[in-house]
């Protein structure tokens, strides 16, 4: 079992970030491309997009990049934060917060984002 989060070893240049898809682990990018506190977007083989984040302790998170409130693929450009000890991203468009581990929208119970397992290899 891998946990939903993993620790990045930023000093190892070869380390890359991988995402678990149905068909197996999919490599996205070198770990050092991720800036603590910010996200990047990545394209999946089936055309879906994923928003990838790294917090200041090095933990990685991945959720669907599509903002369910606007339909735009922009969540990777939101700001990261912690509320009550849990990591979240705030949509850059209308500022709804999403829990990065569970994908739950903190402003609207009925909305959940797909979240992914991530690891560094």
């Amino acid at each position, binding site marked *: 079992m891998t946990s939903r989060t993993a620790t990045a070893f930023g000093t190892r240049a070869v380390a890359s970030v991988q995402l678990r898809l149905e068909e197996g682990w999919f*490599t*996205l*990018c070198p770990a050092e*491309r991720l*800036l*603590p*506190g*910010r996200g*990047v*977007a*990545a*394209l999946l083989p089936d*055309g879906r*997009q994923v928003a*990838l984040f790294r*917090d*200041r302790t090095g933990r990685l998170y991945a959720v669907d990049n*599509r903002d*369910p*409130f*606007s*339909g*735009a*693929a*922009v969540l990777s*450009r*939101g*700001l*990261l*934060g*912690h*509320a009550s*000890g849990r*990591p979240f991203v*705030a949509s*850059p*468009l*209308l*500022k709804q*917060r999403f829990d990065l581990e569970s994908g739950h929208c903190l402003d609207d119970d009925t*909305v959940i984002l797909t979240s992914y397992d991530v690891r560094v290899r």
Partner: protein
Amino acid sequence: MPAPSTAATPTIVLVGHGMVGQRFLEELAARKVTERTRVVVLCEEPRPAYDRVALTSYFSGRTPDELSLTATDFMAEHGIELYLDDPAEHLDRAARTVTARSGRTFRYDTLVLATGSYPFVPPVPGKDARGCFVYRTIEDLLAIEEYAKSAHTGLVVGGGLLGLEAAGALDGLGLATHVVEFAPRLMPVQVDEGGGRALLRTLSGRGLRVHTGTGTQEVLTGEDGSVSGVRLSDGGELATDLVVFSAGVRPRDALARACGLGVGERGGITVDTDCRTGDPAVYAIGECAQAADGRVYGLVAPGYEMARTAAAAIADGTADQGFTGADRSTMLKLLGVDVASFGDAHGTAADCLDVVYADSRAGVYKKLVVDPEGTLLGGILVGDAEAYGTLRALTGSKPPLAPEQLVLPAGAGAPAALGPAALPDEAVICSCHNVTKATVRGAVTEHRCGTVPEVKKCTKAGTGCGSCVKILGQLMDAELEASGIEVDKGLCGCFAHTRQELYEIVRALRLTSYQELLDTHGREEARGTDGCETCKPTVGSIIASLAPVIGASGYVLDGEQAALQDTNDHFLANLQRNGSYSVVPRIPGGEITPENLIVIGEVARDFGLYTKITGGQRIDLFGARVDQLPPIWARLVDAGFESGHAYGKALRTVKSCVGQTWCRYGVQDSVRMAIDLELRYRGLRAPHKLKSAVSGCARECAEAQSKDFGVIATAQGWNLYVGGNGGATPRHADLLAQDLSDAELVRLIDRFLMFYIRTADRLERTATWLDRLEGGLDHLRDVVVHDSLGIGPELESLMGTHVAHYRDEWAETLDDPDRLARFVSFVNAPGAPDPTVRFVPERDQIKPDLPLLTLGPPRTAATLEGTAIR
């Protein structure tokens, strides 16, 4: 429910729907008299009662509707018949009828006269010429405003309270303004000689041309019959295009005289303590009445007392508490000069003593009148009326401090300022509405009011002349604190500090790292976390504003700073609803060469961008994908464009009008000044966005008075306005200083902006900041113009450092491949465009092709971005 009226229904007729008349109606309604009586109101003016006291605020943007005192459904709700534009012309006391101009005749059981006053116009030749005005009604102001459009100079006859208010208004309309006062000093009724001297110095310093000790002998007219000047009693002449008479008011008692009611020697319908005239069926209230103490009061508060008295007498046969006289405290509301007089200001009581403090250099004069036992009887404050609220409320009691300690300025041996805590519970805080300290405290403790607007609504205090609002706030805070209510003023869940405190911490400790700040100064539970989307950009902006001073990188996307910026700053562009971005190149002052216009057109065409002229005199290019931003900017930077910071909480535009160079009215080169200012302050990060404008004359085509800092040219230089705002809660800017040279103007703006950046809350525009700033505009002027805190040079040097270190963010970004790396749609497919960013044609351009939403339409964000609450 009002009673259906029949011939037998008792009828009250009110003549005059002014401030006091309206209050009388409210008092009647509160006593339920309207339920059993027919009430008829004859109103001479074309509109229902409005706030005459605040009349002048029309010139600072309050509309006639906003001045109205009459709630829309008040009349209907209480079944009151109001006849506008229909003055009473004839009274028949024997038949008990009133006949109006329209011919309507009403029978009354009770008649109430509330006809107010008329402005006295001295009988000088030419007084009726075109261009002569009085200052009493909204219609007067509209006429003055219209006429002033073609005038350059204005003159006010009379240097009393109202005259100076009118002079302030003329000055605000851009006229060179004279005041002619017959008495040897200004405001002769309120202030004494010393006070008059201090006032004169300050007002002359503000550009008002004051002529005291001389009368107006004749209004001179030109060939077309309109005003061209006045001849003074000393033989001199002053040229002027417009004259406002403000030589006092006279009670409007003509109707009463004509039907044989008693009037005082100097006018005013005589009434008893119930406000009843010699005819028991007729009452007179407000400025048209001579009260039982033999005085005619020209102030609204005594009028309100009379309204209450008369309503009580009509309701119950006699007033619970008759009207025997009132306080005549006043405070000048305009011109940015503090002048207050209260109680027995001139020391008329037997054996009374004066305590005087005067500093002619600073234009400060303070006098307190006390009796031999030390009871405060009254006083005069000029130049510094900080203590007005407290002193007025203490009048009639023995203050807890010696009088000399009450007038000494802070820092000159005076003990800590006397707070509202020192006041007794029965002290009247708001004299307009007769609200005591106990009532204000009750509003906080019993009615749970936690803000000044709530207290105002609950108690009415502060809704008259406004001079007590400051002390209201102090009282409320003291009461909140006393009841142990702690208001969390913290920025967000991560910091218990305000933005202003964080600014000071970052500056003092030279912190350049957000994480360090959070871990050392954050709330316990937030330390070690990632913070939140509220404090990150706020701290990012503080670090950016202070960058050169604290040794941080001036480039907002370097290192950790990159993670703090809102998405717009992160990509140096504005995010649109479909995930694309807009690009706004800087066009300083709105001036652009044809070549550069063509470059913008070519870039837009080549990248397929939607092009629109913005409301800020520049051009916005919409629909760029994130990966298109660098090549777009490469072309723009090549042509000499810089970032317009449309994405930042930073200076946006300095709009300009075409000004003196082309415009026949212009008196200064407004375009050059706008460009200079825009280039000086470009890139300056602030708590919120900053906007500015420069107009070439008082016609104000650049709308400078709606800007955070606005500049209007005068014949002598520039007038500086601050705190203006469009947006959701518009506010007209306040005049900060006048007739400045180029260098003075820039120096004051430097100080103003840096003081704002230092002390404002997150997402607080200058307008809200100024409204919240303790001491308001006067304090701001003290700090910025008079450098009362001694921080002027520091603020200037901070700005100097900003100007010296400014670099264009886009040019810097293009120069550095590392910085460019972030401008990709996908980290794992740098070349691939985002397929979800799509467009469809509209009106020969493009618009976003929005994906269908499975969710309902996005709920609009809970707050405006511009408000400080999450």
